[in-house]
């Protein structure tokens, strides 16, 4: 066996704290190693060329690259050795950067650790076998989860690329958060005027199948071939008959139902259409408030509906679909005000959130676009905006910036002046974060042209005084305490992961961070991919994001899916389980433990029963391998022999 070892300096990243020359020198002494060298940047073109040349010159048949994490560059180097004429599975990587040079402080210990990492990799690579991919057919349908602006953009781009799209939205209408906004920064153009046409396109596109008021129940399968179950939640209105006339909503006697679309700014009816531009424009009953459900009698909507669409007996329906890729655009949530007790915790009607204020500003909102205080329906003359209400606050577990609040507060201050010219706006801020195109100019306009008074400091307390709300805070530029008597206080509440984000991630088998935002494959270079192949991210599900960024990610995710589907077949990962039928005793424990149903029983000609792996279904976890009592089923590339070789290398040294 002729192993070649390539040790990367990674500039100073590795060579700074690991003696790479010594690693190479020690490596040369290992049995089986015929060539070892170090190089400034092994992943660069000349670095890769060196590997290819060495394979030819030294007749290498195995390659070890000691550099960064295999999660970063394993594929790169697999391609390299393949171009050099070797099977791509004759590569092993020793992670001497993330796990060694970046975390250890002692150069001697680091060097020793790096040498051992290389020894382990050499021991393993000598037991590697050539593996060959097989190709399988791809189902070119894509599932988009979430019908906000990111999800709609992704769905439209995929559909325009001639893919069949399923768009699943959990609320009764697409549009997401953007549909609730009044105007958008920094252009002050009307949000629904630019979003509405997109919503209509989604509804009318012949390639898009919209599942509104539906949620993902189950996801099975793998890239190219998923089987999913969608729960169509009961609306108690037959949408095939509902014309969206709104008659039922007008006549409904329950007038105090919580309005999810308006974030509770004003009540709605128990049967309602969320907003005038809703897509689909269909009514839905909220059984938590409907008298028919609570008291068993009412039936007003059923009587009034001219098409007979009301059906109180409706049940959730489970629909099965087959797809090949998934774009997750499930959006974000906002913290509840009760997590901010110093700001009233939601007890004061005139302390509202930014999104509630959007609804008060919006012409299709509950006040028809007139700014009225929730408590007494009068026009506020003094409005105080509190940025970072929860954001950048470690004490409540949200250390991050919510990204877009600085901008929407500036916008809301401008709009307040537009609506009520004799009003005054105050903005409490920690920093003004306005790094987008035209953003900083916009926040300056709010101050210079619209007279919004910006106070640098945090608000410590908000309490009522007569009809007013007193906002007490610090002005850190003047070094004084300030108290402002406000008619209305708007809190820029912190952005959180969407409710249910963790449960959805578990169904998708993707990772999420401590805060529930989904993890991208690489924070800079693979921002819309996940580590689960076939699953892509778009919008604020990955982290707080404004509209342009969300739209950009929607298109980016769509382009990834279009690229994935540009071929009719995909290459399977050959690192899957394999049964040695001679050793298999037919206990079939592996069949029971396989999470994917990838193992079935097979009868041999002599009547003996053994296990058989279904190649296209096996995901390569290796649970069967550690289940098998006789070592008959082995996960390729991670066999018992290979892993024990690594263990033994460490133990014997």
């Amino acid at each position, binding site marked *: 066996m002729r192993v070649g070892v390539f040790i990367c300096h990674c500039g100073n990243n590795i060579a700074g704290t690991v003696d790479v020359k010594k690693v190479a020198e*020690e490596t040369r002494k290992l049995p089986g190693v015929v060539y070892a060298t170090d190089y400034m940047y092994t992943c660069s073109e000349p670095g890769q060329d060196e590997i290819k040349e060495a394979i030819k010159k030294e007749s290498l048949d195995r390659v070890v690259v000691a550099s960064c*994490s*295999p*999660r*970063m560059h394993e594929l790169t180097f697999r391609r390299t050795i393949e171009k050099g004429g070797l099977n791509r599975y004759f590569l092993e990587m020793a*992670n001497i*950067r*993330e*796990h*060694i040079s*970046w*975390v*250890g*402080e*002692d150069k*001697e*210990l*680091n060097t*020793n*650790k790096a*040498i*051992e*990492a290389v*020894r*382990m990799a050499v021991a393993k690579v000598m037991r590697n076998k050539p593996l060959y991919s097989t190709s399988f057919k791809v189902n070119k349908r894509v599932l988009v989860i979430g019908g906000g602006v990111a999800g709609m953009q992704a769905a439209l781009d995929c559909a325009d690329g001639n893919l069949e799209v399923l768009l699943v939205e959990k609320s009764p209408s697409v549009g997401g958060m953007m549909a609730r906004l009044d105007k958008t920064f920094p252009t002050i153009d009307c949000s629904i005027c630019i979003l509405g046409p997109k919503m209509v396109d989604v509804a009318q596109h012949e390639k898009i199948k919209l599942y509104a008021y539906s949620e993902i129940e189950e996801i099975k399968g793998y890239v190219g071939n998923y089987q999913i179950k969608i729960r169509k939640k009961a609306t108690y209105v037959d949408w095939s008959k509902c014309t969206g006339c709104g008659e039922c909503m007008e006549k409904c006697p329950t007038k105090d139902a919580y309005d999810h679309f308006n974030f509770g700014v004003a009540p709605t009816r128990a049967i309602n259409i969320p907003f005038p531009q809703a897509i689909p424009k269909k009514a839905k009953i909220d059984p938590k408030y409907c008298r028919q459900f609570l008291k068993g009698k009412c039936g007003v909507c059923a009587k009034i509906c001219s098409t007979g669409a009301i059906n109180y007996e409706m049940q959730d329906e489970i629909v099965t679909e087959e797809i090949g890729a998934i774009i997750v655009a499930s959006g974000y949530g906002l913290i509840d005000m009760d997590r901010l007790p110093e700001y009233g915790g939601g007890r004061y009607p005139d302390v509202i959130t930014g999104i509630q204020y959007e609804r008060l500003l919006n012409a299709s909102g509950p006040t028809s676009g007139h700014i009225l205080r929730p408590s007494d329906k009068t026009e506020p003359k003094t409005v105080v905006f509190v940025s970072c209400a929860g954001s950048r606050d470690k004490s409540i577990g949200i250390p991050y910036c919510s990204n877009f609040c600085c901008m929407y507060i500036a916008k809301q201050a401008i709009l307040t002046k537009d609506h009520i010219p004799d009003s005054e706006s105050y903005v409490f801020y920690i920093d003004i974060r306005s790094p987008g195109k035209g953003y900083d100019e916009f926040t300056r306009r709010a101050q210079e042209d619209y007279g919004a008074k910006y106070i640098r400091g945090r608000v410590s307390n908000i309490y009522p005084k007569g009809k007013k709300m007193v906002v007490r805070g610090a002005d850190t530029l003047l070094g004084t305490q300030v108290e402002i008597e406000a008619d209305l206080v708007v809190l820029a509440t912190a952005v959180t992961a969407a409710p249910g984000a963790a449960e959805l*991630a*578990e169904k998708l*088998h993707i*990772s*999420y*961070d*401590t805060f529930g935002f989904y*993890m991208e494959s690489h924070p800079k270079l693979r921002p819309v991919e996940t*580590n*689960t192949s076939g699953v892509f991210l778009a919008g604020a599900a990955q982290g707080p994001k404004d509209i342009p960024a969300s739209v950009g990610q929607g298109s980016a995710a769509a382009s990834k899916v279009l690229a994935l589907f540009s071929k009719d077949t995909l290459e399977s990962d050959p*690192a899957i389980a394999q049964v040695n039928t001679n050793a298999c005793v037919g206990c079939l424990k592996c069949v029971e*433990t396989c*999470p*994917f149903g990838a193992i079935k029983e097979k009868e041999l000609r002599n009547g003996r029963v053994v296990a058989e792996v279904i190649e296209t279904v096996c*995901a*390569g*976890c*290796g*649970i069967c*391998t*550690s*289940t098998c009592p006789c070592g008959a089923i082995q*996960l390729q590339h*991670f066999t*018992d022999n290979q*892993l*024990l070789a*690594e*263990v*033994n290398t*460490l*133990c*014997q*040294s």
Partner: protein
Amino acid sequence: MSVIAAKELRIIGFLCNWCSYGGADTAGVSRFKQPTDLRIIRVPCSGRVDPLFVVKALLNGADGVLVSGCHPRDCHYSDGNFYARRRLEMLKRLLPFIGIDERRFHYTWISASEGARWQQVITDFTKQIHKLGPLSTKTEVMVES
């Protein structure tokens, strides 16, 4: 090349590719300093870890073994970490019977984003192994029996 005497002990970690190996990578990217004792073996899933790997490592010269996978319900392969949990919990109870202090073996769940948690876990575990000292299977077996 062996463990540098008096400075390090032999600790082996089996890390699942999707969560914990990524978590250790995240710790590296964030430059979270750690003790250098640990040697990491990458496995696709914590469910791939045969308890016998742990036993063989401990009997053949390792002073401590750590297994780390995805958080329960968050496994890349649906249920792998549940299988791991059952097997490894059983192993933990079995170790004293073969004369090994069960504190030499630890299993935990760390996600790919939890770099700081990884730093904490590996620092604590390394400290614990140093407290227990080098494992001499012969003497430990005698003490236990």
